[in-house]
């Protein structure tokens, strides 16, 4: 019997609510106001990427998170969550193989708001329970509880990613790079490594305004912007960053094919930005199909995601679609 079955047996109401797809690790996460300081030149400019590009030996790191409400004790939701991270090394045969991976499956519940008997069942049957501390006035507002739960899940995944990233750095070959799907600035070790790159494809935070903003968001395909120093929120470490356009955005939208790259805050980064950008452009093939975000998703990063999803518990996320009553067997 699973712990959620045990909860149901203890009187909780079984449920099956999966929140909308996770938003991923964006640069808006901690709500801190970003700031930018141009490093390469006084005004933001577009530079063509180096072509033909030198493709580097690399490992690729990504993480996933899956969660859903599996029961309600009164109106207190009990959530089952799963996070996983893997780093996959691309070998000379051009095929990625898993280097390191880790996962965690756990429950999230506002323990203080639960009936003692149900809570006891949860705590005795589920080995990994995370409490959701509620503030005084918020109470058990379903929307707020879910938002808090999401942060817990995000946090768990970020911890896992940081851990796997730092362990990967330790085994990285002397010529090998580590490409991380997301922010580099979340880890001091990552942010300081000469061959670590963060690839950000959702642009919640805007670092510029005015003419610089326009130049940043209209950088043409095969070009990068000037390198700037990105300042993130509280926990962030300092990194250098630039925008890179993989595919022509004209006819699509401003963010189409647009990546933001993070790298070590060092003069060498400025010198290498065009070459690195050329390499990332070369990673456009093969296209990261059938993912809808293929314009910004690098295939080897998608590969990590596919790998992790394939290994996730089968029963956590049922096939998307109908919430009609289940029929038959």
């Amino acid at each position, binding site marked *: 019997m699973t712990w959620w079955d045990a909860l149901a047996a203890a009187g909780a109401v079984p449920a099956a609510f999966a929140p909308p797809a996770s938003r991923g690790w964006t640069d808006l996460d901690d709500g801190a106001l970003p700031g930018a300081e141009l490093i390469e030149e006084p005004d933001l400019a577009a530079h063509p990427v180096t072509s033909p590009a030198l*493709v580097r030996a690399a490992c690729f790191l990504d993480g996933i998170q899956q969660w859903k409400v599996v029961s309600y004790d009164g109106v207190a939701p009990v959530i089952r969550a799963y996070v996983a991270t893997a780093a996959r090394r*691309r070998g000379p045969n*051009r*095929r*990625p193989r898993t280097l390191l991976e880790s996962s965690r499956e756990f429950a999230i519940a506002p323990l203080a708001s639960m009936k003692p008997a149900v809570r006891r069942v949860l705590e005795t049957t589920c080995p990994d329970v995370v409490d959701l501390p509620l503030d005084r006035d918020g109470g058990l507002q379903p929307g707020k509880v879910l938002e808090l739960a999401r942060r817990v899940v995000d946090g768990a995944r970020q911890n896992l990613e940081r851990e796997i990233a730092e362990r990967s750095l330790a085994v990285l070959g002397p010529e090998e790079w580590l490409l991380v799907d997301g922010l580099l600035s979340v880890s001091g070790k990552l942010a300081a490594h000469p061959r670590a790159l963060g690839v950000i494809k959702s642009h919640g935070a805007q670092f510029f305004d005015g003419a610089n903003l326009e130049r940043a968001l209209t950088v043409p395909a095969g070009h990068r912007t000037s390198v700037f120093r990105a300042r993130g929120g509280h926990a962030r470490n300092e990194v250098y960053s630039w925008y890179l356009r993989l595919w022509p955005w004209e006819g699509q939208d401003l963010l189409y094919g647009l990546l933001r790259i993070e790298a070590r805050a060092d003069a060498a980064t400025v010198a290498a930005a065009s070459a690195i950008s050329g390499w990332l452009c*070369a990673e456009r*093939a*093969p296209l990261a199909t059938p993912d809808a975000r293929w314009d910004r998703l690098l*295939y*080897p990063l998608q590969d990590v995601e596919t790998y992790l999803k394939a290994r996730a518990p089968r029963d956590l996320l049922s096939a998307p679609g109908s919430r009609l009553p289940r029929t038959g067997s």
Partner: protein
Amino acid sequence: MYGVVTDGFAYSDLPTPLHDVVGAEGDPTRAAEAPTARQEIRYWTAAVLRQTPEEPLQPVPIGQVFVASDADVAQALRMDGYLYSATPSAIPIGLYTAAGLESPVYLDADFLIGPEAAHLNISGVSGLATKTSAVEFLLASIFEHFPAHKGKVAAVCFNVKGPDLCFLDQPGALSDEDRRRYERLAVPSRPFERVRMYAPLKADGVNLNTLRTHADLVHIVEPLTWGLAEVVDYAEVLLNRDDIDAKADAFIDFLRDRVLARTFDDGFGGTHRVQTFADLDRLFRAIFDGLELTSGGRSDTWRTHHIATIRKVRNRLSNISTRCKGLVTDDGPSSDLPWGAFEDRAVYVVDVANVDPLGQDLVFARAVSKLREHLERRDLGVDAVVVFVDELNKYAPGDGPDTYVKKMLLDISERGRYLGLVLFGAEQFRSQVHRRVVGNAATQLFGRMDMDELATPGYQVLSPATKIKLATLPIGELMVRHPHFTQPIFVRFPKPPVLRGRDGVERFPPAADLPFDDAVVRQLVRLDRRIRPNQVKDLIAERDEDDVRRALAAVRRTRPDDVLAYFRKVLGGRVSTDIPRERTAVPPLNPIADEPY
């Protein structure tokens, strides 16, 4: 769990080929340059051949896959029962080849030769399907592996195409690879040791009508000639081709029972002893003249037979004697297959390649009926006979009238297995052969097939992948269906150990036809080496050729000790030929048009 791969698939995360074109920025030459190889898997489906335990029947679980060893192949194809038994009955058919391993595949003689099931059919396109070759190889394999407890076995092969089966006793060129295959299959790579060939004569009545007339090889060729009695016995073959006629049948019975080889009174004052076509024709003329004279043409029946029926039978019989002049002679049978004295592991080749279709039917009907008769009486000399009929579609077509030959083939295919009379048939298009004739063949071989043929309803049971494999099958590979095998199996067999017909005629070019007197000399010398040519030539100089032929036939029939003396005796004194028979007939068209032979 044993299985055989039936289909293969590849999956990748590429939704459409267009995406790779986009990824390569429209430049196909750059498609291979992507830094990461796209995820792709190969996935094979297999059909279950056998599972242990057999009961209860289980779905296939997920598990590790191994390549089959010889022992596995034997298990999987249920060959263990007849391969490792106390009385093994396994006949090698070829090598199952997978992942660098080669395992012999065996047929069960009980199901190939009888009595459990029998017959074999092979189809496939001309030249690439290796039908004739496969049968040749299989015969060699049968001769080597036919189980002792089943007795003796022989083969009767009808050569219907050029020089195809004319050199079964001559070695062919084999590659080392093929020799290795022979060793693996434990079949000797030697040509057949006991081969006899039978060929009709040409219209001149003295030269052999076959492509095996080279001086070094002609000694195993016997002339195959029949007389009136043999033809009348199988007259149904001639009649049923165009019409089924009870009246004609009755008249033929009358001829057979009351007229042939008896002293017979025609009712108009004439007495006949009908032994030859010429005799018969005299009788017919007497009848027509008699009716004309006695009734002034008013009566149109003779002994209850209508004159039209009589005319029809006369036409048919004289037709065959003109169309198949070298086969059907006025002189009665002079040589025939050794009914009752068939030898173990011998191949009897009957060359009818240049015979008129009607004559082919006749040869065929008579040979098979004789085999059947003797096998029924168990006095053929062997216990089982494989009858190989190439171009089966000509003799048992799926459409067209029910000829005697077709009915006979159907009969063998339905009842032959109890008798040890086994039909090996080959044809290009199975769909053109009578369904029950192919359907009764327990063992089915398929070489390279034609796609259009594969689209016909007979092949619906095959998966699309199997069809594609059949349509692209390399030379020397066959698909085998056999009662013990739950799935079709692909095997490779070596080139037959005999000289290919086409190479044979190159190496041993047929001798030019001899002048009449030299041909007579040759035939007599064959029977008695002491005979000197000039003795014969002096004897037959200025003699009527028909008389010479008749005397020659009598010698062949009698096989006297003193050939020349007997020949002289039968030839008789030098008498002037009375009524020289003028039989001018339109020469028959060569029945086989698309072969150079």
